[in-house]
């Protein structure tokens, strides 16, 4: 050690240490902001889910009560069903649309217009979207009156805009454009050489999809569908504006719990909100894992 110490001749050039602390100080407002308005309020939900609303002691009562309450379980179930339906349906249709625009032999301006439309449509949600579908599919809506003129009234055959199927049709409006936006780079990454190579080797169109294209695209298709699932699972404003809060979704129940203690148990409200965060966290984790698998092919 002493030998090493004696060897030093000039001090090493290194940045002055006080600069570091200035930088730390500079990022403090962000962390302070994030803590105060995002992390602290969110952790309140976690903490109070495990807290007795009277004694403030630790309890699992709220969480267990979730699984005992048919009304709440039903809300979770409908939210999950609607999210599954619109993420898989919107995912498949969005993929077909993106593939048609990018590789379907359509004029090239179709692609850029589709991307712009999808950017608008995935952002056009909530109250105005609900109204647009009321104008189209309510009993006096444009499409329904056209169908009535043709002698077919869907409202006589069990269709209503304000329940499960109607809401699914509305959700699709922001689901498939999101799919198009996110999946387009993956379709771009599908090299033309792979199609040519498999055609040269005598593969049929089916074989190309089964053995080449789908295995490469599947992780990103699945990953994006998971993202769509989360997108629909957390949606509130569209459903609220469309049904006036008459549909039993998790977000709607939380909304009415927030207006006044609709469940008659504050602890249950927190546990319900926590349940949503858990579902969303699982979805985002799944997306991240699949995204990492995708990146291998998209360089």
């Amino acid at each position, binding site marked *: 050690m002493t030998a090493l110490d004696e060897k030093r001749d000039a001090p090493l050039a290194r940045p002055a240490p006080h600069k570091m602390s200035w*930088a*730390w100080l*500079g*990022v403090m*407002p962000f*962390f302070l*902001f*994030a803590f*105060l*308005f*995002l*992390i602290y*309020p*969110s952790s*309140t*939900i976690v903490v*109070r889910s495990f807290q007795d609303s009277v004694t403030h002691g630790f309890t699992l009562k709220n969480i267990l009560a979730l699984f005992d309450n048919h009304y709440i379980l039903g809300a979770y179930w409908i939210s999950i069903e609607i999210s599954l339906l619109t993420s898989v349906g919107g995912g498949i249709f969005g993929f077909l649309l993106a593939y*048609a*625009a990018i590789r*379907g032999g359509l004029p090239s301006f179709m692609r850029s217009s*589709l991307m712009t439309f999808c950017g*608008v*449509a995935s*952002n056009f*949600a*909530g*109250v*105005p979207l*609900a*109204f*647009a*579908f*009321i*104008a*189209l599919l309510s009993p006096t809506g*444009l*499409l329904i009156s056209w169908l009535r003129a043709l002698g077919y009234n869907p409202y006589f055959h069990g269709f209503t805009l304000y329940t499960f199927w109607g809401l699914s049709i509305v959700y699709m*409006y*922001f689901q*498939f*454009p*999101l799919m198009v*936006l*996110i999946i387009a780079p993956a379709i771009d990454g599908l090299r033309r050489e792979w199609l040519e190579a498999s055609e040269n080797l005598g593969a049929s*169109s089916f074989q190309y999809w089964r053995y080449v294209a789908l295995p490469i695209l599947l992780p990103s298709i699945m990953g994006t569908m998971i993202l769509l699932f989360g*997108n*629909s699972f*957390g*949606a*509130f*404003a569209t459903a609220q*504006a469309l049904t*006036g809060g008459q549909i039993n979704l998790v*977000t709607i129940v*939380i*909304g009415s719990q*927030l*207006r006044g203690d609709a469940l008659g148990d504050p602890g249950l*409200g927190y546990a319900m*909100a926590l349940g949503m965060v858990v579902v969303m966290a699982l979805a985002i984790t799944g997306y991240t894992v699949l995204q990492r698998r995708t990146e291998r092919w998209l360089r």
Partner: protein
Amino acid sequence: MRRGNRIWSWIVMIIGILYFFLPLLATFIFSLKAKLGVLSFQAYANVFHDPAFVYNFSYSVLWAISTIVVGILLFVPTAYLIRLRVPKLRSAVEFITLLPFVIPAIVFVFGLVRTFSHPPLLIVNSPALLIAGYTVLSMPYMYRSIDTGLRSIDVRTLTEAAQSLGAGWGSILFDIILPNIRVAILSGAFLSFAIVIGEYILAQYLAKPAFAPYMAYQIQQKAYEPAAMAIISFALTWAAMGIIALVGRGNGQAQVGGGH
């Protein structure tokens, strides 16, 4: 085989176009029917002459601009310092900026209301809480836009050049870095604008005047005016996206977002 593919592509595309335009067409036609028997822009005139609309809409614009200003002031220095001085905090910041995706807006506002509605944190009635909430909701888009912008310029060289010419930190950030990433900031800003203008949940539950809650209320009251408002809202979204596409031309990144 190729020709068959093209026919399928057209069929899929036409279904997509119908899905996209039919609801808008229905809304537009409906919005023109305010006068019995003739098509007119009466509903639009009613909307623009309605003081309550002007009041609520102006507030939404005010919230949107405040959110953008707070976002720029808060995120530009942070993204800059993370990139240049404290890269070890990068993953922490990325985690935080992604959190609003994981926490649905209704759960987020639930947390906000319950946290800030009793002393010592009784600020649930303050507009500051609403703007802070909007800043959180727009954070994934705003922060990411700024960070992408910083990635495309040589932050280190610019900083060192400015320093050796004697610039202080304030002028480095606001005279050098900010103008160089203005395209990225603009696209983040317009996306935030579209999100805040269309946002319903926060304003509704924090009981503040805003466009979306007003429109939701009008749906229960009137027929033609909400249709006109839906068209106005759509035109605004379209304008914001169009400007983003225009200023960001060439960097090819798709903007994804929204509050449903």
